[in-house]
């Protein structure tokens, strides 16, 4: 009998290994216990990856809505510790947070946190909420944070959904974008009936609330932020976020912002940086990036290794897959033909569910030299239909991995990020899940936020590159890292300053190298265009690169520049 037990134990434990699960849920063993406590609506939350104590292990900051936001310290042994309280990241009054991004605002070498909010308690005793200012926490360098939004001039009270950092004027100080959804929001004290977020729907959003104006702030030497929202040459939309990204390969950071309800309101917008002139030009129509949909988030990556960045936008139903055809050419939406145009996914107990996508990220999870695509999905609270996440494998065309991915939880997914929490070289994934508004006892239970360890075991090679900016921002946000491999293969990555949804991926760029055991050469282009090179780099290492203070262009570079060769 005992033997029988032993055998059945063996059989059952052996089975999962056979089914080739690519990711493993390690939330519990990593000591993570988080769920985004939604303030009766569809907004939030997010997660930012950063190393707050510079110990070489990337930590996580998680927004929690009307719950307690959490800073998780990565202990380096596969476990995380909640250090929120000891780091001073506690609010007196209840604040409903949504998105988060991080950057070294004052260039003291320690990464600071910016959190977007939609509402806050008026006073401690009251339930009544009002619009709230967003939260800037400066890192003291001693493991603690101090709230500094007033001092930095970030006082506006808006209905903010997410934020991102990027250095638009290449002065080395990260500038800030804040996405706002509504212009005003009438909380419980509305004149006619109660308007809390639970009853938000297509009609009430479109008919009763005006879309919000997004905000753009210029970082003034690390001492304050100056509101330069007039550079955002577009109309207010139901903003869900933006990425700072170089769409046209001219070495400055443009802004691609995505809006909800873009069919009837302001669609997505691309604003082209006119650097060195401090200005932006709206080229949404020319570049055909003015997609009008339920855009929730955007992922950035050069999926076809042509050195032009492509963008995937999440949506209700399949989102557009916007492919960059090169400078001054319009984008083409390949979603219907490239394999990501899946509108429904097998949900709970085999039911087919319409995909509602939020987080989107490109990552080469299997090191086969091309970027794969991950989307975190989830219904719109209080709806509880179960829409799992989806992983697409890039094989020239995209193929969904689904049940073999190990990533298909039935949580109400929102933001998601990739990073390497266990420093083993491959990219792991974290997904923020919302707490269902309804009782889930008879609906399959509650699924909390998830940490997924990458267990895709092939023996292919990788390279991680961490930038140490000197004149540029501390982590080189928005910089472009390009590697050159044999057979003329080139791959680029852009350092993420905040993307989708309401989140920020690792700022350590990652390449899958396939069979290559070395990289022929590597270039780093910092925002503004300064470029430095390294040659002959061996694989399977974390390469830390310090920005060179002075870069003397070689004759060869002059030659390339003269003839405008990229």
């Amino acid at each position, binding site marked *: 009998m005992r033997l029988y037990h032993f055998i059945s134990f063996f059989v059952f434990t052996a089975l999962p290994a056979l089914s080739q699960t690519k990711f493993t849920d390690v939330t519990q063993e990593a000591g993570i216990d988080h769920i985004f406590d939604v303030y009766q609506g569809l907004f939030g939350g997010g997660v930012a990856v950063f190393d707050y104590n510079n110990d070489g292990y990337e930590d996580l900051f998680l927004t929690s809505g009307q719950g307690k936001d959490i800073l998780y310290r990565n202990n380096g042994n596969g476990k995380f510790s909640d250090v929120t309280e000891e780091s001073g990241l506690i609010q007196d009054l209840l604040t409903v947070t949504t998105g988060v991004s991080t950057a070294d605002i004052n260039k003291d070498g320690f990464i600071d946190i910016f959190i977007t909010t939609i509402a806050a308690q008026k006073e401690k005793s009251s339930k009544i909420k009002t619009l709230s200012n967003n939260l800037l926490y400066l890192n003291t360098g001693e493991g603690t944070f101090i709230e500094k939004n007033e001092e930095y001039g970030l006082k506006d009270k808006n209905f903010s959904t997410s934020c991102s950092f990027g250095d638009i004027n290449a002065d080395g100080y990260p500038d800030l974008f804040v996405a706002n959804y509504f212009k005003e929001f009438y909380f419980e004290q509305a004149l006619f009936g109660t308007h809390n977020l639970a009853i*938000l729907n297509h009609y009430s959003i479109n008919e009763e609330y005006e879309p919000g104006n997004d905000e753009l702030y210029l970082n003034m030497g690390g001492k304050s932020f100056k509101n330069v929202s007039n550079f955002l040459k577009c109309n207010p939309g139901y903003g869900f976020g933006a990425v700072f990204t170089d769409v046209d390969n001219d070495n400055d950071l443009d802004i691609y912002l995505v809006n909800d309800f873009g069919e009837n309101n302001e669609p997505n917008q691309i604003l082209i940086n006119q650097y060195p002139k401090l200005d932006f030009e709206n080229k949404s129509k020319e570049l055909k990036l003015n997609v009008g949909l339920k855009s929730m988030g955007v992922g950035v990556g050069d999926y076809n290794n042509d050195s032009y960045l492509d963008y995937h936008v999440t949506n209700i139903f399949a989102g557009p897959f916007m492919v960059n055809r090169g400078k001054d050419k319009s984008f083409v939406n390949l979603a219907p033909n490239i394999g990501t145009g899946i509108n429904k996914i097998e949900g709970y107990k085999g039911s087919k569910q*319409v995909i509602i996508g939020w987080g989107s990220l490109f990552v080469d999870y299997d090191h086969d030299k091309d970027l794969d695509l991950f989307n975190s999905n989830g219904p719109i609270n209080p709806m509880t239909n179960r829409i799992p996440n989806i992983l697409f494998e890039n094989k020239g065309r995209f193929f969904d991995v689904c049940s073999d991915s190990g990533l298909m939880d039935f949580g109400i997914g929102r933001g998601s990020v990739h990073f390497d929490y266990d420093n083993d070289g491959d990219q792991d994934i974290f997904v923020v899940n919302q707490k269902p508004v309804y009782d889930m006892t008879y609906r399959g239970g509650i699924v909390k936020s998830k940490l997924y360890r990458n267990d895709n075991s092939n023996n292919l090679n990788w390279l991680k590159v961490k930038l140490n900016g000197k004149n540029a921002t501390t982590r080189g946000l928005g910089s472009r890292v390009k590697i050159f491999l044999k057979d003329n293969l080139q791959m680029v990555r852009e350092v993420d300053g905040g993307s989708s949804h309401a989140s920020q991926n690792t700022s350590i760029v990652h390449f899958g190298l396939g069979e290559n055991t070395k990289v022929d050469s590597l270039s780093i282009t910092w925002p503004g265009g300064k470029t430095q090179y390294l040659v002959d780099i061996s694989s399977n290492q974390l390469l830390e690169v310090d920005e060179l203070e002075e870069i003397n262009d070689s004759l060869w570079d002059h030659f390339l520049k003269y003839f405008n060769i990229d």
Partner: protein
Amino acid sequence: MKWNKIRFLPFVFLFLIVQQKILFSQERSIARTWNEVILESIRNDFARPTVHARNLFHMSAMMYDIWTIFNKKSKPFFLNKNNNGVYIPYEETSFDKENKKALHEAISYASYRYLYHRYEVSPKFKKTKDLIDSVFCSLGYDPNFKSINYKDGNSAALGNYIAKQVIDYGWKDGSNEKYFYTNLFYEPVNQPLILKNPGSQKINDPNRWQPLAFEKFIDQSGNEIPGSVPPFLGPEWGLTWPFSLDKNDLKSMNRDEFNFPVYHDPGPPPEFLDSDCKINSEFWWNHSYVSIWSSHLDPNDDVLWDISPAGIGNLDFSNIKYNVESLKGIYNRYDGGDFSNGYKINPITNKPYKKQIVPRGDYTRVIAEFWADGPDSETPPGHWFTILNYVSDHNEFDLKFEGKEKLTNLEWDIKAYFILGGAMHDAAIAAWGIKGFYDYIRPISAIRMMSDYGQSSNPNLLNYSPFGIKLEKDYVDLVNENDKLAGKSKENVGKIKLRAWKGHDYISNTETDNAGVGWILAENWWPYQRPTFVTPNFAGYISGHSTYSRAAAEVLTLLTGSEYFPGGMGEYIAKKNKFLVFEEGPTRDIKIQWATYRDASNQCSLSRIWGGIHPPVDDLPGRIIGEKIGIKAFNYGKSFFKTD
């Protein structure tokens, strides 16, 4: 669903059948083997008739060019000449004339590389890959041999080399292969028709194409968001480099800031409104045709037809115009079919054709399905390759080029594929150039839209609108109070009803039910097509099927030297209760029969009206343009066959 049944067959078994069929049939040429493989690859791909016409053509031309290297008498198509600015060099190498082994090897390597390239992004590539690999390996070739250095006389390297050149040519040929043939300029002007909802919904421009939404998402408050909306396939296909289309037949036509290349411009289709701002009778006449013919899809209405060549075929439509008066002389509005005379005798046997009396409702449903060429099929260009192969295999056919010179199996296949491929490719470019530019509405949108407006026959009756459909006794009428369709609270009174095929709602089991014909609300009218397909995802004007089919019929006529099928009869048997896919039927075995290639082509054209997706005005210009394309392609292709 019957279709699922096929999937449940053990895969290996099915696979073996396909492979056996391809490999071990006696006397099949190497060209035929690889042609069967590409046809199967097409079936495993999306239903993209433009893309597959191009794939068939490039593959056929590639095999032809390799053959010319060994034949040494004919001129190659790609090699050593300028094709639209692309020059594919080939250095004369010591390949022995008629060296069969080397020729087979070169064709196989080229086909293998080419098929891998063109189909590796298919949704069902795994199936395709297994087939390509197994055919290639069982012919004894090594997939790891990748050299393209043919100059020392290595025929495998020659195959690899030519495939690479043709693939590279494809990157430049205007088809936009690089971006999966996705539209770069075209955008639909109309909001999608959500198929789960009644009516035509929101049509901004009644003369333009309306996309279809196969899903809808309902948010918390019941608002609907359309989903699964297939984009227009190929509106910019006119940019693709053709085979034999003539620049003199090309116009650059501007709309929405894009210059559509249009070959053989047939002029605009009838617009929705006439100059008095009332419904244009030509528009109405054409689109309502489709709902009337939809009433012929009942096998139990006691209408019997002789569908043999004695009863159907032999239609003459030379010098026809596209207006209603002319079209009336061809199509039979109420009884269905065309005013063809049939044949008194089979000129090959000199005996009369044997009558085949069957229910009209079986015949029409069978041909609608036979020529549907949608999902899981080889699409219309591929379908005509299967018909060519059928002819080549026919016992009574001699493989005589133009009915004169007898060719070997291989030479026949090589030449026939080359010309037919070219014609199909040209048909796609011409038809889709026209479709893209005119962007004309489909019957499902037009019929529902006219009916949504009401009736334009009588201002004194209910629901009058100058934009409405016209009432026609027994076919189009108003729902009255006592009508079954009136609804519980009489909410449908005054709506337009149609006597038509009742649609998928009336089929719960595709094995046992057929929807039948009866009165339905016009807002719920469906074409006789699969519920997952409904109507092809591109504009209707002009019919691709008519263009492809007529072009192919002309090519086969010239190629074989006879307008008649071998023995004066082509035949396909649709098995009782097996053949139809989405409903039960036919009620008996139906032999689809054609005397001539043109009869087959005409039948294909009519099947699209019964199928609910083309009015006559889409069809006829397709036939006439197809005829021109087929003849031109044949003569152009033939000019390569003799050296100067």
